[in-house]
């Protein structure tokens, strides 16, 4: 059942995840970055990935979420770290799409 559901929801998952990554990138690149909102996007993405069973994607999304929350608390390196993890997330999604 799980494999069937995973196959059935792969396409909408990829579409939604790419939208979430795009919004996350915009939130951290805008003139007044909003790491709190970026963390919420990644929290939602991690939940979707985990429930469907895409654990690698869920783990990376949780990394972005945790980094964004640290950044919101004052860590100046947050933007660069998030950019790198988002690139890894995009690569993980590309791998799922193949």
């Amino acid at each position, binding site marked *: *059942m*799980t494999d069937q*559901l995973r196959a*059935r*929801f792969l396409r*909408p*998952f990829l579409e*939604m995840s790419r939208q979430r990554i795009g919004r996350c990138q915009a939130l951290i690149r805008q003139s007044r970055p909003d790491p709190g909102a970026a963390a*919420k996007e990644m*929290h*939602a993405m*991690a*939940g*979707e990935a*985990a*429930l*469907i*069973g895409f654990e690698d994607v*869920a783990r990376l999304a949780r990394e972005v979420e945790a980094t964004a929350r640290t950044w919101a608390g004052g860590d100046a390196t947050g933007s660069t770290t998030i950019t790198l993890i988002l690139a890894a997330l995009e690569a993980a999604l590309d791998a799922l799409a193949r």
Partner: protein
Amino acid sequence: MTGNRVLILDDSALILDVAKAALEDAGFSVGTAIDLAQFEHERLHSRPDLVLIDVNMPEAFGDDVAAVLRAVRGLKVPILLFSNLEAPELEARAREAGIDGFISKRAGIPAFVSRVKSILDPGAQ
């Protein structure tokens, strides 16, 4: 088929679609709501046997909604948090809200369906 009805409140349309499909495959009847207005409409019209509520939502925290449903609105059916938060935090939030527990999205679909079955259809376990 169990025929039991589950109502899920989550602000992710994808989560709602996946959870609904998984539970319907297991024989449950499923209602979904993406916001509080839809949730209240569904709850009052469908009379669910189990309610699952996400925690981080734009309008309110799910544990606050659950606490009001139990303590103020007097909802008697099991209410569980359904979230991607870590289990210890979910357990604490559920206990604080005075509800019946939680299901972690991190556990995946099989554990999700199994947990719902254990609550609504314990004889089938």
